[in-house]
């Protein structure tokens, strides 16, 4: 294990940014914090727990052009423009968000593999940051995430130890990044590692005291048909405004649409995020199988709590980050749904 003095963060970022695009949590206009490209002078905020929008946009951009097309006379020319070119480092990603990448991987990296997504994942180095102070809307533990531990799959795991970050490379990519920073990183002492253990215990204790500590989707019993026909969908969907806030701030939602900018003789084909809340979602030539907000609302939660786990060895498609709770204009959210379906420990 290594350690990175906070006073040397700027130096580290400068080194990383020489050969990579570096994404860090940046405070914008003194208001929200979001992952964006690091530049000298940006106000990086590593204390802020949840970025306003999830870092999903780095691996799965909201809008991504696939190809450009042009006709000259009778000749049609196509130009492939998709894919990520530059290697990048995502610095300070929280364990819930890191887990969300693994969930999206299950969708995009199984056959047929989504090449553009794969390229973005391969070009990225993830540096996670443990959550020293989980918030009241956090319920990642309901999905087996331990925000104090090093998340699986991240290249470097870090912990905020006050004056320094404890730095633990976990993969070959992580080792390689660590080597590049050799001049700045220091060796961690046995005491540091012991302090980290204490921090982890402290985090575990904090988790137990959170208001949503008892949320447990595994307590949801009943077969698919029973849940599908539950009364809750009528009751809760009637309050839903049908906007896409929850889906667009969600780190695990991954539905998309493919559209064209059609300029007549030239245009672009692009992929963009879609939302199951929208009226034209699943619209087909014959009409829409999900006619009302009830069906759309049900789909969102069935997907996360039933369909996805059925297809992925029981893993839920939610990481408990709580962003949807923060953002819903009418305070409807997945926790209310889980509770109503019986997903709570006694």
């Amino acid at each position, binding site marked *: 294990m290594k350690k990175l003095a906070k006073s040397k963060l700027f130096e580290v970022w400068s080194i990383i940014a020489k050969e990579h695009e570096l994404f860090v949590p940046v405070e914008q206009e003194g*208001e*929200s914090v979001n992952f964006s490209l690091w530049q000298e002078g940006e106000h990086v905020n590593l204390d802020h727990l949840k970025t*306003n*929008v999830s870092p999903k946009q780095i691996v799965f951009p*909201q*809008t991504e052009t696939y190809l450009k097309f042009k006709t000259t006379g009778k000749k049609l020319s196509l130009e492939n423009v998709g894919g990520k070119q530059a290697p990048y480092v995502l610095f300070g990603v929280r364990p819930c968000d890191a887990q969300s990448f693994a969930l999206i991987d299950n969708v995009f990296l199984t056959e047929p593999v989504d090449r553009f997504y794969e390229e973005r994942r391969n070009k990225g180095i993830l540096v996670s940051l443990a959550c020293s102070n989980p918030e*009241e*809307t956090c319920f990642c533990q309901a999905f087996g995430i331990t925000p104090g531990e090093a998340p699986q799959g991240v290249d470097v795991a870090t912990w905020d130890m006050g004056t320094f970050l404890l730095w633990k490379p976990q993969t070959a990519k992580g080792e390689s990044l660590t080597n590049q920073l050799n001049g700045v990183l220091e060796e961690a002492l046995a005491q540091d590692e012991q302090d980290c253990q204490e921090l982890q215990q402290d985090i575990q204790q904090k988790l137990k005291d959170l*208001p*949503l500590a008892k949320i447990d989707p595994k307590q949801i019993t009943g077969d698919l048909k029973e849940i599908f026909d539950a009364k809750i969908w009528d*009751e809760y969907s*009637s*309050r839903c*405004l*049908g*906007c*896409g*806030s929850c*889906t*667009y*701030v969600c780190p695990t939602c991954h539905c998309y*649409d493919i*559209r064209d*900018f*059609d300029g007549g003789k030239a245009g672009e084909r*692009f992929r*963009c*995020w*879609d*939302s199951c809340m*929208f*009226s*034209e979602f699943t*619209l087909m030539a014959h009409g829409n199988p999900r006619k009302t907000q009830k069906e759309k609302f049900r789909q969102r939660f069935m997907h996360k709590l039933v369909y996805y786990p059925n297809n992925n060895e029981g893993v839920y498609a939610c990481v408990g980050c709580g962003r949807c*709770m923060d*953002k819903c*204009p*009418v*305070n*409807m959210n997945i*926790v*209310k749904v889980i509770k109503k379906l019986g997903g709570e420990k006694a």
Partner: protein
Amino acid sequence: MEKIAAKVREVAKQALASGAVTKILGWETGEFWYDASPVFITDEKAADSLIWDAFCVTNLSKYLIKELKTTQKIGVFLKGCDSLAFNQLLKDHRIDQEQVVIYGLPCPGMIDPEKVKKAGLHQGLLKVKRSGDELTFVTANGEKKVSSRSFDYDKCLRCRYPNPVVYQELIGEEIVRETSNEDRFADVSALENLSPEERYDYWTKQFSKCLRCNACRNVCPACSCEKCVFDNVAAGISGKATVDSEEQFFHIIRAYHVAGRCVDCGECSRVCPVGIPLHKLNHKIMKDMNELYGTYEAGVDGADKSPLVTYTLDDTDPFDGHRQGEK
């Protein structure tokens, strides 16, 4: 507000028991100290779950469009701003007044949870009680009283109608508040003082944050089309791309579409997940309309006509009489 909350439950129970209405639209509490969500009740026993506190910010009037299609008579709790929205929905022929019983709630202002969090008062917070401008922050370790409006939503600080403008029954007493017309469009004046280039940059930056989630549209009481043009695939403009041109197009079209019908409830800005100050667009249009055609406030009256749907020969020509059509 707790005494009023008890009355809210009582009124709802009686209305359902007597058969005066068959459904009540109100609010219920949820997981957190700031959690209030709409609830629709048909059983009088369920009326016990109704609340009225400083977090009942959601406007229930727009739900009437959908609910009245299946329910003959509905009772609804409306604050001042919500009642403006109600009037506008009436005027837009989206709801039928005969089917609705309005229980008006004078509103002291709603609390913005973000402001409480920023002040660090949210740690261990269990409940926030409000009585006029006196707030009581209740934690497991005791209570802290603060007398201040500094936690109110910005939109509530600008509020000009704390009391409902239309109701069948007023619950509680009217709130007396000084409301100032002077600063109402200060946000617009600040933007107008910028150069066109600066202004363009300002809005481009704001719109570039847009996620195209449609929360602003869906919460808006003036956005009540059965099918929005942006949901109409056949129209060819339902672009979901987050590129400047699409974002600007969406917001400018929306602002113009609600021109003369926006009741200035500020919900668009409140619900925006990325914090775009959308109300400023509406304010700009209102300010211009007021300057051109005289003061008009949508929603205050349920029957008068907006200057944009009336025409008189001596109407000011915006390209002639009003700043000569300058940018």
